Structures are given as structure tokens and as C-alpha cells.
């Protein structure tokens, strides 16, 4: 298998990458569009897939809306030379051309897409992404050739399209243009027909119509006042509910037309004050929440700074689960069983919630916690919980296991460990394995709903910063951070170290021994130009191009040839994540340097883990 790493910082993918595309941070959208351009130019298109399983043939009017008749989207039937409902049997829908239907000038969505990406050539992307055009074309060629368009494979007696090209871009969405960048990368694989085909890109380990598929398309914008998450607001009608943005709302509710702020919060096994952008805003906002309870095994920074009550949670000493343990090919379920009694005053969260809801008078009866557990755990008769008796946690999960068909109940996990359910049938795993394929839905090459939202946002008076990326096709614009003054000559990105989990592990002694402190990854050429040597303490100062704010931290330099010269990297751990002697002197979190709010969140309010910075020897 050939592997291409697309990352400003080569990191752990290094030994496995056949090719490295050291992309400039924040430009993945430009790269994806250039790949789409090159793939169309080279003609490696899975037209069968585009015609039958996407909205690529749907006719788009000049106003950007689909042409409909009797509520049905229309396609151009090349056989009869007329517009027909897309679901009409026996038709031959066109992907290209311009026609007149119902007295209107219309084009198939694919034609609109093709004309749209015509401007985004690899040569255009070259200076934006910092990747040679020829390298982009080579990747496009590799994708086109290896997609083996038209090929099929027989799996367990089921013949399915075989498109062995894929991409992992999970956290790519957490950059300012990340929403459209993710769409555009997905489109690369739609063009190749590799979406949900064998060997191709899969949204999940088995096929299901994603809950967001219709929710996003049908998102509505309400009139203010909005709730503090800004759900269904004119600001972020598609909303990732990012605590960083909520913090901005808490600090300025009037700006966001919010009239009620949270009066209490329960933080469950999370360290929100260090793990999101941006840390100073988060700390200021959370201090305004009147009552905060934190459930955590550690005295996290969040617990330390803002908790009124800390409820110590057990870690390995509790029943927890179920946990999906399948690998996509074999289905399995794991369940954590306690290896000992909880230490000190800690308790499992289920015990904590049973007690809390009992005290609050919300444990029993219809709509109570037990009733909710019956639904959440899909408990079936005779294993449903009685709504009038407080159960032991083990009993709850025993009922769950029995409802799942394990006659031994939870004892199965206590004695046998993982429940291996065997191979996942291709009928379950692949979108193409469904009857009808993809459960009858069509992937959206053209996002009509996004255009509708943009128009509604404009009509409700939202500023351009909020609606500008609600475009039916992914559209490039320079990221806001690029407006920072030239002296902020580098881009900071954060990344995960394999030693740690999120911002919740660097206080663990044995883990911290492997990676004891924050280090700023700097290319040696950049370091030389700035008189910085490996191990020197450096000052990193970030700049907010919208507000002019700056932030500073100091950390030691780590020189590496595996990072772009115009980029510096900091792992997203550390930052005194907990009040713990071992975290003293570990150095800062980069989340102090990142910003949140306009220009520094996606159009869905998600975090943006990049910012322009300057560095100097401290």
C-alpha cells in the first residue's frame, strides 16, 4: 500500500509515508479542490456512482436551487432529451452540459462543480499550499489509477465495487475552513466512486445513514433569543457545540442575542479549561458559571480553578461500557469490569449519578434516570429496570448484557473479556452492500441546503464572517489568520503525542517520564535564522488578526527537519493540566496561544487549532 502523509509536521507517520506533502496549515481546502480539478482533468471519474448515488445529475437553476417538479429534483434525461424526476426508471441522466428546462437555464450539479473547480488547478494551489503542482498531480494520478474504477470484488458471495483508495482526515475539520475542506476531501473520493466502496473511504465502521445527513440539510434558523450554545442561530446554524465559542457567549451574551446563561455545569471526565481554544477566554468564562461540579479522577485544572464540588471518579475500578472493540472487519464489544474496589473516596460515575438523581428526586418513575437507562441501554423485557427500586451498577449492566443476548449476563465479560461477534458481513459494512445501495440516499456533491442557510443568515442580518463559508460548493478564501502583520511570520499548529491522551495524561508519572515537558518543534533553518539552538527557551507570541490581541508563552525549542520552515508545532498536552507536583515545570499548553471567536472558529463554531505567531530566543 502506498501512503501519503499530508501534514506540516511529519511526526509518527514518517516511517510509513511513501510521500510527504508538507502542507501549509489551513490550506487543506485548496489542496482538496486542486485534487478535484486534477481528477476531473485526467478523467478518472466513477460516472456510475455519481449518476446513481449522488446528487451530481440534479439540475441546478441560476439561483443555485435545484429544479423541482412536484417536489422532486429533476435530472436531464439524455435518452428522451427532457427533464425528468431523478427517480424515474429507465432514464439516462446527464452529468454535463447546459440545458433549458421548464423555461429555465439549468446545469447538472456536476457541471456546476466542474466549472467551479476549473479555477483551482494544481498550479493555483502550489503557492497557497506550499506543495509543488507536480506533486499534487502525482497524488491525483495515483488516486485515479489505484481507484480501479469499474472493478468489483466478491466478498462472501456479494459482488461489490472495489475502490482501494482512501484517506483519513478526521481532525482536519478543526481549522477555520475545515468544514468545507472536509467536504472537498470527501468529494475527491466521490469523484473516484470510493465512498463507502470496498477499500474506500468509510464514514463509520459499518454502513448507516448518518444522523447528521438529514439534520444538517434541514437545519433551521430560529429567531433570537438563542440558547447559549447558539444552536439553530443565525451565527452557526450547523453547530458543533464548541465550549470555546460558548465561553465567548458567556462573556458577551448580548452580542450573540442570548438571554439565558448556564447556572450550573457538570464536567464529566474532561479538562475543558486546557483542552479547548482558547484557554484564557475559557477560564474567564467558566468563572462566571455560578455552580460547577467536576467528576474526575484527577484534580484537573478545571476542577482546581472552577469547581465548587469535586466528585472523585474511579478509573479501572468500576463497571464501564459497553465499548466497541471491532476493527471494522470483526465486530466485538468490550466492557470494563472492576479489578478491585474503588480507591480512596472514588466511585464509578454510574454510582455517582444514581446517588445524585436519587437525591434530586429524579431517579425513579417515568422520565427518571432509571427510565432513561432502560432506553439508553436498550434494555428488553424481562431485563428492564424497575422504576421504583435503586439497582446496583453491576445489576444494570447484567441486564444490559442479557438484553444483548448473552445468557450469562455481565459474567460473560468478567470471565471471558471481549465479546467477539465474528466477521462483519459486507451487507452490513458497505453502503454498496445495502438494498437499495446506500439505503437509497444520495451523497451531496452539491449542498443546496448550505446555500439556503446562507440566504437565511443574510436575511436575518448575520455578518459576513458567519455566512461566508455556507456555500453549496467548497470555495477557497484565505484564512483570517493570514491578515496578521508580517512580523508574525510563522504558523503554529498543535498535535497529539502518542504518549498522552488529550490534556488528561501528562500528570501521570510513568507517561510523563517518556515525554516530560513541552517542546516547540522548529525547523533548524528557521531556528538558525533566529539564533535559536536546540533546547533554548523560546518565546512564542500569537496574534489575533480580528481583535489585535496577542498571547505569549515560553517553552524549550526542539529542532527537527520534519517540520515546515514556516511552521512551529506544539503538542496539545501540558499546561499544568492538574494540580499535581509532576505537572510543575512541564510548560504551557498551545491552547493559550490559539484564539476562539470570529476568524478563529469554523463556520460550524468548531475549534481552530492554528494561529500566526512569531518566535524569539527568550
Amino acid at each position, binding site marked *: 500500500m502506498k501512503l501519503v502523509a499530508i501534514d506540516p509536521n511529519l511526526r509518527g507517520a*514518517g*516511517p510509513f509515508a511513501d510521500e510527504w506533502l508538507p502542507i501549509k496549515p489551513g490550506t487543506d481546502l485548496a489542496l482538496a479542490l486542486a485534487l478535484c480539478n486534477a481528477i476531473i482533468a485526467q478523467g478518472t471519474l466513477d460516472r456510475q456512482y455519481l449518476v446513481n448515488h449522488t446528487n451530481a445529475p440534479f439540475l441546478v437553476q441560476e439561483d443555485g436551487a435545484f429544479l423541482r417538479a412536484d417536489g422532486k429534483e429533476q435530472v436531464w434525461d439524455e435518452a428522451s432529451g427532457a427533464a425528468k424526476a431523478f427517480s424515474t426508471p429507465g432514464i439516462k441522466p446527464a452529468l454535463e452540459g447546459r440545458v433549458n428546462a421548464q423555461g429555465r437555464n439549468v446545469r447538472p450539479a456536476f457541471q456546476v462543480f466542474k466549472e467551479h473547480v476549473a479555477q483551482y488547478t494544481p498550479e493555483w494551489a502550489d503557492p497557497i499550499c506550499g506543495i509543488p503542482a507536480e506533486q499534487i498531480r502525482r497524488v491525483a494520478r495515483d488516486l485515479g489509477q489505484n481507484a480501479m474504477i469499474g472493478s468489483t470484488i466478491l466478498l462472501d458471495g456479494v459482488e461489490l465495487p472495489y475502490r482501494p483508495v482512501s484517506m483519513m482526515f478526521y481532525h482536519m475539520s478543526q481549522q477555520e475552513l475545515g468544514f468545507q475542506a472536509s467536504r472537498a476531501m470527501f468529494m475527491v473520493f466521490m469523484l473516484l466512486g470510493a465512498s463507502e466502496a470496498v477499500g474506500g473511504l468509510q464514514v463509520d465502521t459499518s454502513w448507516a445513514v448518518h444522523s447528521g445527513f438529514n439534520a444538517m440539510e434541514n437545519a433551521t434558523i430560529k429567531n433570537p433569543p438563542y440558547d447559549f450554545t447558539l444552536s439553530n442561530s443565525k451565527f452557526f446554524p450547523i453547530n458543533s457545540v464548541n465550549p470555546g465559542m460558548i465561553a465567548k457567549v458567556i462573556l458577551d451574551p448580548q452580542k450573540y442575542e442570548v438571554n439565558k446563561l448556564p447556572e450550573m455545569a457538570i464536567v464529566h471526565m474532561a479538562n475543558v479549561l486546557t483542552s479547548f481554544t482558547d484557554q484564557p477566554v475559557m477560564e474567564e468564562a467558566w468563572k462566571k458559571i455560578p455552580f460547577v461540579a467536576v467528576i474526575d479522577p484527577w484534580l484537573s485544572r478545571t476542577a482546581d480553578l472552577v469547581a465548587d464540588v469535586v466528585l472523585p471518579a474511579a478509573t479501572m475500578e468500576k463497571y464501564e461500557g459497553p465499548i466497541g472493540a471491532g476493527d471494522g472487519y470483526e465486530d466485538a464489544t468490550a466492557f470494563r469490569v472492576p479489578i478491585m474496589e474503588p480507591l*480512596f473516596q472514588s466511585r464509578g460515575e454510574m454510582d455517582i449519578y444514581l446517588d445524585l438523581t436519587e437525591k434530586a428526586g429524579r431517579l425513579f418513575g417515568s422520565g427518571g434516570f432509571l427510565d432513561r437507562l432502560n432506553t439508553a441501554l436498550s434494555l428488553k423485557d424481562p431485563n428492564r429496570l424497575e422504576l421504583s427500586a435503586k439497582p446496583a451498577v453491576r445489576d444494570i449492566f447484567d441486564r444490559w448484557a442479557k438484553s444483548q443476548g448473552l445468557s450469562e449476563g455481565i459474567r460473560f465479560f468478567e470471565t471471558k473479556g471481549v465479546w467477539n461477534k465474528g466477521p462483519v458481513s459486507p451487507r452490513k459494512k458497505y453502503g454498496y452492500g445495502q438494498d437499495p445501495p446506500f439505503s437509497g440516499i444520495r451523497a451531496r456533491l452539491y449542498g443546496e441546503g448550505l446555500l439556503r442557510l446562507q440566504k437565511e443568515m443574510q436575511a436575518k442580518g448575520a455578518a459576513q464572517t458567519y455566512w461566508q463559508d455556507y456555500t453549496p460548493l467548497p470555495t477557497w478564501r484565505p484564512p483570517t489568520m493570514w491578515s496578521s502583520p508580517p512580523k508574525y511570520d510563522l504558523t503554529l499548529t498543535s498535535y497529539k503525542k*502518542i504518549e498522552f491522551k488529550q490534556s488528561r495524561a501528562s500528570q501521570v508519572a510513568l507517561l510523563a*517520564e517518556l515525554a*516530560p515537558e513541552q517542546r516547540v518543534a522548529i525547523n533548524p533553518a528557521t531556528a538558525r535564522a533566529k539564533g535559536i539552538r536546540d533546547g533554548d527557551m523560546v518565546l512564542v507570541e500569537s496574534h489575533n488578526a480580528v481583535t489585535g490581541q496577542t498571547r505569549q508563552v515560553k517553552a524549550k525549542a526542539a529542532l527537527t*527537519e*520534519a517540520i515546515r520552515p514556516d511552521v512551529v508545532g506544539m503538542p496539545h498536552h501540558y499546561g499544568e493540566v492538574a494540580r499535581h507536583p509532576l505537572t510543575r515545570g512541564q510548560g504551557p499548553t498551545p491552547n493559550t496561544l490559539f484564539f476562539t471567536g470570529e476568524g478563529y472558529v469554523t463556520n460550524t463554531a468548531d475549534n481552530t487549532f492554528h494561529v500566526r505567531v512569531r518566535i524569539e530566543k527568550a
Partner: protein
Amino acid sequence: MARNGMVIELDRCQGCRACMEACKVENNTPQGNFWMYVFRLEEGEYPDTKVRFLPRPCMHCDNPPCVTVCPVQARFKNENGAVVVDWDKCIGCHYCVVACPYGVNYFNWKDPEKAYYLDWKDKDLVAATGGAIPPYQNPDLMGRYGPQQRRVAGGGHLKGVVEKCSFCVQRVEQNLPPACVEVCPVQALHFGDLDDPNSDVSKTLSRKRSFRLKEELNTQPKVFYVGQSPPGARAREIEAVKAKQ
């Protein structure tokens, strides 16, 4: 009696250092001692940079220079070919540290009570842990092993003693692989009898071209690397793990 060795598939290793962690947990080594160590190496210049990983346990040489130089016979090759240290006998002279070309030896500069994360003599700690046994007195590692009944596992961790990878004598005795092998999430590490043609290690070696570190020194290491060529002379270490001062 076996001639146990290790085969490390470099093209599988993802440099996660879980083996280092497993070793620390299994052998209760003091802070900064890594009987198993994973080098993260970098070669070339941007953008033609190559990154690679190289796990480095003790090489358990068939011709071990550390054994030759040990003046008190604390260092010896055991019945399974593992080169081990009898920490009862070691006088901390450092000869083995100097003789070993692989840097696998760790000298304990501190008393064990001061070399771990907690002050195990602190009254509050003793009260909170109910008098739990400190990690350096793990009874599983304090015992005597093999036909010679010598103290060669990771017990004691005494000041003034040199310690290193034992191929987990305490596990091998129970027919378990060393902790690093057991924990590797990508099965990059293989352990077994090099003299048994049906062992996992022999089979892997018969399939793939291998190299050993500093073979020219005739130390005859029993740790083999497959899946990649040896690191170049200009390889630089990045993300080194050092003892916290």
C-alpha cells in the same frame, strides 16, 4: 535450555514507546532507567526528511563484553542465553557500562527510596497506601531465579548497582514473553528460541533479511532487526528521553 533472542520488525514499529512503559511497569525500574529504549531518529533535510524508530533492549550478546570484564562474576549468561546481572553481587565498578557498545546499562546513583515518584517513607503516603510495598521491593522480582538461584530480576534497584534488561527472567520462567513483547500493539517484537527452527523468531528470520547492531564488534547480539536497513551514520536522535534531573 534455550538460546532466547528477539526479532524486531522495524517496518511495524510505530515508535509509541509502549514497550518502554511496559518494561518500567513490569520491572519497576527507577526514574530515568529504560531497560527498553526506543530511539526516534531523523535523517536528511527538509523536505527530504526520513523519520524512523529503533527499539533497543539489551542485545543479550552471545559473546558479551560486559560478562568478560565483570570482576565479580555478577554479570553472566543464564541457562536461556540471557545476559543478566546478579544485583546481590554487583559492586558498581562500571566496567560493564564502559565495555558495552550499546549503552544498555543504567547505574543507580540514588537510593531507591529517592529514585521513584513518591517518597515511600512519607508518613501520609504510608497511611494512604495502607503500608503497600514500594515498587523497588516488588516480591515478584526480589527472588532467586534459574538453576543458579541468583537474584537477577528487577528487585532491589539498589544504589551503586548497575542494572539492565533481563529479557524478563521472571516472566520467561513462567513461559511468558518479556513485557515489551507482550504489550507491543503492532506485534513488532518477537521473542523465542533462536535454536528452535519452529520458533516465531526463527521463522521471522528465515523470511526476512536481518541485521544486528555493531555486528563488526563480534559481540554476536541475539537481538535481530528486520524490515529496514540499519540507520545511517548521520541519523540524529529526536525526542530523546532522559532522566529528569
